[in-house]
């Protein structure tokens, strides 16, 4: 990409960011203008594809916006492309810019909410103007140095990208298991719903990880088809490393008071002790096990109480 094209892409990304910031009141991204200086963080590109019909158009944009809003609590680097702005050129430009400001320690999140098409050989993302293929997306992603990458493609036939975009350190989440599942999906609806549903946060740490959102959404898809006795036309899939990336905070973002650092350190120790005890559960009688667990948890409860009293959110 030449300098002019780079500048164009940056400007477009900046416009989008400004749009997000208007909506989410987030901070402007220094990284966009000062590539390479940002600390390790999560960086996200969210795209709402072409709906074709008004209902889908509205749904895709709504889901993309919800995801954007949730991620705004987690990272400042969110590029949201929706409606007419979500063109092939814009996607390419956003990823190219992302490559420029990312480091290998960063985590990349790429989410496409929308229709896809699969002709038996090639998967294409449906966007305004020319569609782009999974292979093209792969080419745009490759230069991004982030070692940890998560790609989420929610729509019809999205399973077709599994073969094309699979790579070490890259986790793929798709709404269908293959390109042959070509009906419109409901996976995206449940995936975004997970971001504000406490039931998705199964470890109750106040955060919803990508894995938790995937599990929640998969469960929702099964129930969706079960409740009306319909045959499921989509089977969500995750492949690659378990995606521990945080997609949403259900509680307010943590603030840490230096004076309470010892409490937090002790809480982390307790958490580790509980994990160890759990791993050794078989060595104890039920009563012994739960007695020990209770002791650890009571101390944990006291610490959480002290942290809460101090106005901190764990």
């Amino acid at each position, binding site marked *: 990409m030449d300098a002019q094209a780079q500048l164009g892409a940056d400007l477009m990304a900046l416009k989008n960011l400004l749009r997000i910031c208007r909506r989410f009141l987030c901070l402007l991204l220094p990284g966009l203008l000062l590539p390479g200086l940002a600390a390790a963080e999560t960086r996200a590109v969210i795209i709402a594809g072409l709906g074709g019909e008004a209902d889908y158009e509205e749904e895709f944009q709504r889901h993309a916006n919800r995801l954007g809003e949730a991620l705004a609590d987690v990272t400042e680097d969110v590029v949201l492309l929706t409606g007419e702005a979500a063109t092939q050129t814009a996607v390419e430009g956003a990823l190219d810019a992302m490559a420029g400001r990312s480091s290998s320690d960063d985590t990349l999140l790429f989410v496409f909410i929308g229709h896809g098409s699969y002709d038996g050989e090639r998967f294409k993302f449906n966007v305004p103007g020319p569609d782009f293929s999974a292979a093209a997306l792969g080419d745009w992603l490759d230069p991004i140095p982030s070692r940890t990458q998560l790609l989420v493609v929610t729509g019809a036939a999205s399973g077709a990208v599994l073969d094309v975009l699979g790579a070490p350190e890259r986790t793929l989440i798709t709404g269908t298991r293959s390109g042959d599942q070509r009906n419109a999906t409901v996976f995206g609806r449940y995936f975004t719903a997970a971001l504000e549903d*406490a*039931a*998705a*946060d*199964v*470890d*109750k*740490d*106040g955060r919803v990880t990508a894995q938790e959102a995937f*599990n*929640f959404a998969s*469960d929702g898809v099964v*129930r969706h088809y*079960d*409740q*009306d*006795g319909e045959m499921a036309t989509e089977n969500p899939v995750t492949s690659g490393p378990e995606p521990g990336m945080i997609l949403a905070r259900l*509680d307010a973002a943590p603030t840490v008071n230096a004076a309470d650092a010892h409490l937090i350190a002790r*809480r982390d120790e*307790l*958490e580790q002790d*509980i994990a160890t005890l*759990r791993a050794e559960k078989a060595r104890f009688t039920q009563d012994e096990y*739960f007695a020990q*667990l*209770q002791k650890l*948890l*009571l101390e*944990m*409860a*006291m610490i*959480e*109480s002290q942290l809460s009293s101090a106005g901190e959110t*764990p």
Partner: protein
Amino acid sequence: MKGLSAVLITVGLLTLPGALSAAIDECHALDDHGKSEAGTCYLNLLSAETDDGIRAEAYWRLNEVNRANAAFRRAIDAKPDDAELRARWGLLFLSAHQAADAEALFEEALSLDPNNLTALAGQAELLLDRFAGAAQSTISRALIVDPMHARTRVLRARLLLEAGNRDAAADILLDLVASSATPVRDRLDAMALLAAADHMSGIATPELPSPWVIQALEINPRFGEIHAVPAYFYVITRRYREAVALLEAAVALDPEHWDAQLALGTNLLRVNELEAGQEHLERAYSGDAFNAETVNMLRLLDTLDGYDTLISERLILRTHPEETAVLTRYVGELVDLAHEEMAPRYGFRLERPVVIELYQHHDDFAVRTAGLPGIGILGATFGDVVVMDGPSAKPATEWDWLSTVWHEVAHVVTLNATDNLVSRWFSEGVSVYEEQRFGPSPSSSVPFEFLKAMAEDRLLGVAELDNGFMRPQYEGQIGVSYVQAGLLCTFIADRYEDGLRRVLEVYATTTDTVVAIQEGLGLDPADLDDAFGRWLEENYGFAAANLADYQTSAQAAFAAIDAKDWGEARQQAERAISLYPTYTGPGNARLALARALELAAESTAPNPAAPMDRDGAFTPGEQGGGEAPAQQASTARQALLDYFLIGGRNPRALRDAVALFEAAGEGEHAHTIQRTLTRLEPMRFDHHARLGALATSLGHHEEALSERRLALALKPHDLAGAHYQVALALNTLGRKDEATRALLQALEIAPRYPEGLQLLREISR
């Protein structure tokens, strides 16, 4: 009906020319008389014979089905226009349980020769096996071609006997036995049917064999069908223990009678003898691996092996382990009620536990009941044993599984109270009556198909009502017969004091409906028909006469909803409701009314731009009947409540109703409907969770705990949350130790669970 089929298709009339015919006839004669030399005879014939048609017959008798099939194929290649060969090949397929191929070959044979008796008889037999009404006309067609055709006459006698016309059947059969022109095998078959007639009339019992047994065994000492055919008649009249006894006698005579081995295995399962049943099924498989019914049964036993079995004084329940916790509770409650209330209504006491198997997959249930997948019924009862789809097998939009449990348990009562002699219509009628009057979803709604049949005068008299189940004459007649039988029992229960109990008592001594009505109610069946007809007219005549109008108005209401014309939708829906107010089925006008009003309320809800009167109240417009949004919403809720109260059970409608009542702060209604919804879809943890929350809000803490536990048993996605809710419910009930344990289970999964830690602190104080 494999046992009987085997008899009737093993040999047809085969006329072959000259010496070849004589050679195979000689072998057949040995075989028909049960001589062990028959095998050698066929082998010798095969070593010399080159005609593939004859070789096929020899292979067939030697039970070499594949070779017989190949020989028939070669024979047809050589003689493509030979109708008889095709018909015989069809019979081979029928004997190998390949009905579709058999049917095609019979049709091909008849296209070559419309009067081919082997094909006509084969086709009739296939239709008889399917209990298809068309069997009668096919038999008649064959008898026009040759009124004395022995095979067809045997089939006609079978049909008459199945319909309970024993005298007419016996006339034909005695004539066949007496005639020297009757082929040996047909004569033996006639004797087996005569023995069956003896059993059906009570002259013979498993302990007291029919005199025809001795006569048949004198001709062929290995003729197992002499017991297997009467056993079949016991099966179709639901007397499985008697069938088992006779089938044991059949396989004792002929251990290689694979169809009898299969029937014995199947019926042992029906009387809850699983191990013995499996043993005979395995024997059947060892001798006849072609029979899909055997294979399916054995696979099903593998499935059952992984099921939980709960054994209590009143109930033996087999369920998939994932569903045990939930189903045990609901089924247990119903079976308790059956012991305490249902059985006493009929002067009966359930002495043994009711056995209930609930299948997760419909095809498993279908195999259990019929041996082959694809049947449409929901449940079946074999004496004490109820087998049925579980709630996971079909969506709740299609059925109400708990009502089906109640229906089937009512069969346990009527079958046991009469030692299985009760007629089909009465047993079904009492079950439907029980379902509609006392079941989990009481209702007096009948489907459109019934009203149509009523308006078109297609209902049967009580004396013939069994035929509506056994040999339907028109599409949907079985369903119509169920409804009719149920309404007839409702009428009897309401009009004649203890009427149902008295009729049931008579059925304990006879299978004859005429006698049961005469002695039980003191009137002739025709008089009962007249009185019932008048009652039916009074109660359903208006709805039947206005059925088309109801449908038109209901459809117009839904169309108006699509067009967002709420006023028109409401008017049409209310008109439909006035024509058939108790209707709960699909295309329901009450749901259209609720939907129209709900949408009208949403669309006309007050907003800054809406017209206001001087007091600031909303000014109603023309839409939705001119009511204010709050009133429209209230009327919508009332429509849903009415639908629910008359027995409407569409889960989607009930989900809407719960949400609306909850949002309106009418927790009692939300709770009542949610409770029913949870029973309709018991495997949905979210229903249990919601019912638990509603119960808590109304102070029903024991119920809340119970529901929270069921939600947890279903292993929801948010396991920590589910444990926490159980802990909360226990804590509310003051059960601190249990609450602590439940809480620890939540925190074990999610150690930083804020609400959990908070509660732990509170409990530990």
